C-alpha cells in the first residue's frame, strides 16, 4: 500500500470513527439495534452539502448536520418509546423516511462540492496544514468528540444512560425515566453519525443520496474489530477501541480493494466480517463480556 493510499485510508478511518462512536452508543451502551444510522449519515452529508453548495459557511453547515442527526435520532426514540414500536422497526421507519427527506434537502440525487469552500480547505490554509490538514482536523475532531463522549458517560446522566442499556428495570426503580434516556442516547448517537456524514461529504467533495447504505454494518464491524483488538475493560478503553476499530476497518477495506475486489463488493466483505466475528466463539466471548440476564443477548440483537 502506497503512503498516499494509506494516509487517505487513515483520514477516512478517522472521519468514520465519529460515526462509529455513535453506533457504539446505541449498539453497545443502550443495547439498541438502531438502523436510523443509514439514513442519518446521508442526512448529515445532505445538509452540509446543500448549505455549502449554496455558499454558506462550512463550519456552520457541519454544525447543522449534527443537529439534523439529533432530530432524526429523537424521532426514532419517540417511535420506540411513545408508540411502542420495536427498536428495529423504529430505526427502519426513520431510515426509510429519511431517504425521501435527504432527496428533498439536496434537491437531486447528488451534489458535487468540487472547488467549494469546506472545513478542510479552511483548515488547510493554516500554517503547516497544506498537506496533512485533512488528517489533523479529523484526528482533532475524533479525539475531542471521543473525550467529550467519555466525560458524558461519567456524568450522572451518562451513568443513568449506561444503566438503561444494562438493566432497564433496575435504573427505572432508581427513579430514571428510561424513555427519556433512550431518546437522548439515540439523539446523540445519530447526531454523531450525521456529523461524520458531513465530514465524509466534504472530504469526498460530493454528497450522494445512497452514500449511507450499509453504514450501520460498517459501524458494527468497526466496533467489533476495535473491541477485540483493544478490549472493553473500562469506558475509556472501549471508546479508544471504537476509534481504533474504525481505522482498522478502513485499512481492511483498502487492503481488500488492493487485492482486486471491486468497490461494489465492499458491502459483502463487510457483512462477512461481521458474520465471522459473531459466529466465532472465541471472538464472541470477547465481544459479549457481560454475565447475567444480558449474556448472549447482544449476539441475537446484532
Amino acid at each position, binding site marked *: 500500500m502506497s503512503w498516499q493510499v494509506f494516509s487517505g485510508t487513515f483520514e477516512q478511518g478517522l472521519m468514520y470513527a465519529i460515526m462509529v462512536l455513535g453506533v457504539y452508543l446505541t449498539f453497545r451502551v443502550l443495547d439498541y439495534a438502531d438502523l436510523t444510522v443509514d439514513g442519518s449519515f446521508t442526512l448529515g452529508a445532505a445538509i452540509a452539502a446543500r448549505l455549502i453548495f449554496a455558499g454558506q459557511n462550512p463550519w456552520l453547515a457541519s454544525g447543522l448536520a449534527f443537529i439534523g442527526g439529533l432530530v432524526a435520532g429523537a424521532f426514532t426514540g419517540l417511535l420506540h418509546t411513545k408508540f411502542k414500536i420495536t427498536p428495529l422497526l423504529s430505526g427502519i421507519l426513520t431510515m426509510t423516511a429519511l431517504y425521501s427527506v435527504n432527496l428533498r434537502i439536496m434537491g437531486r440525487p447528488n451534489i458535487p462540492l468540487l472547488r467549494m469552500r469546506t472545513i478542510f480547505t479552511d483548515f488547510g490554509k493554516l500554517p503547516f496544514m497544506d498537506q496533512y490538514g485533512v488528517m489533523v482536523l479529523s484526528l482533532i475532531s475524533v479525539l475531542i468528540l471521543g473525550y467529550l463522549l467519555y466525560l458524558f458517560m*461519567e456524568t*450522572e446522566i451518562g*451513568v443513568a444512560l449506561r444503566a438503561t442499556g444494562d438493566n432497564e428495570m433496575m435504573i*427505572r*426503580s*432508581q427513579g430514571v425515566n428510561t424513555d427519556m434516556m433512550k431518546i437522548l442516547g439515540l439523539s446523540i448517537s445519530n447526531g454523531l453519525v450525521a456529523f461524520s456524514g458531513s465530514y465524509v461529504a466534504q472530504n469526498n467533495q460530493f454528497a450522494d443520496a445512497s452514500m449511507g447504505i450499509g453504514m450501520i454494518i460498517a459501524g458494527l464491524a468497526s466496533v467489533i474489530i476495535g473491541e477485540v483488538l483493544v478490549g472493553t475493560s473500562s469506558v475509556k478503553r472501549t471508546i479508544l477501541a471504537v476509534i481504533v476499530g474504525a481505522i482498522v476497518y478502513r485499512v481492511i477495506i483498502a487492503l481488500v480493494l488492493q487485492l482486486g475486489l471491486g468497490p461494489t463488493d465492499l458491502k459483502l466483505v463487510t457483512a462477512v466480517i461481521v458474520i465471522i466475528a459473531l459466529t466465532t466463539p472465541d471472538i464472541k466471548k470477547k465481544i459479549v463480556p*457481560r454475565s447475567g440476564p444480558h449474556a448472549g443477548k447482544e449476539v441475537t440483537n446484532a
Partner: protein
Amino acid sequence: MLRVQNILKTFNKGTVNEKMAIKGITLKLAAGDFVTVIGSNGAGKSTLLNSIAGDFPVDKGEIHIGDCEITGWPQYRRASLVSRVFQDPMRGTASSMTIEENMVMALRRGQSRRLRRAISAKERAYFRQELTKLGLSLENRLTNKVSLLSGGQRQALTLLMATIQKPQLLLLDEHTAALDPKTAEKVLDLTCRVAAENNLTTLMITHNLDHALSVGNRTIMMHEGRIILDLREEERTNMTINRLLEMFEKESGSHIHNDRMILA
C-alpha cells in the same frame, strides 16, 4: 405511612389467560412497620408489591404513601418514595458497571440526573464506609464491575443500595430466596439491622415461615388475591409455624402446595 385502598388487578384481561391476581386488597402500614408477607404461589404477593412499586397501573383502588397519592404515578417517579430488592440478584444491579457507579445511581434515587460528574471523592469515601458495614471486603473493590461479584454479594449490595438513600417504603420480594442458606441468613440479618437503624417501613415477602414470624412486627397471609390473615402483637408472638399452617388451611380451605413453605 402506606395506605392501599381496595385495589384490583387483572392480567391478560379479555383473553383465555385472564387472571385476577388481586381481588380487592386494603392494607395500612404505620411508619416503621416491618410486615412480612406469606402465601402460596399465585397468591398475589408479588403483584401487590409490584403494584405499589408501579410496574403496572392497578385497575381499581388507590395507593397512598405518606401524604401522596401515587396511584397514577409512573414507576420512575415512585422511586423517590419506594425502593426495592428483587429475588433475582441480577435484577437489582447493573452488571457491566462498577460497584461505585451502581451505588451512585442508588444515592441519586428519585432525584433528577444532571450533567455533572457522577461520583465525587467525598461520595467515594462514603461508599467505602458503607460497604465496610457489609463485612464482605467490597470496600476495596469500588471500581470492580458488579458482574464479578457472587449472588450473595450482589444481593447485599442491592440491599445497601436500596437503603443508602432512605426510602419511605422498602419492598423486599423474597430477596434471600435465591441465596445459599448461610448467605441468606447474613443478608436477612443485614436487612433487619438496616431497617431498625433507619426505622424503615418495610414489606417483605418470604417463603420461610420461621422468618415470617421472627422478623418484623406484623405478618400478613395472602391467598388467591386477598389478605386472609393479619397477625400482630400478642397473636403473632404466640403463633407457631404449625398453627400458622393450620390457620392457613382453615382460612383458605385448601392445603399448602408449596414445599418450600413447609420445608423451610
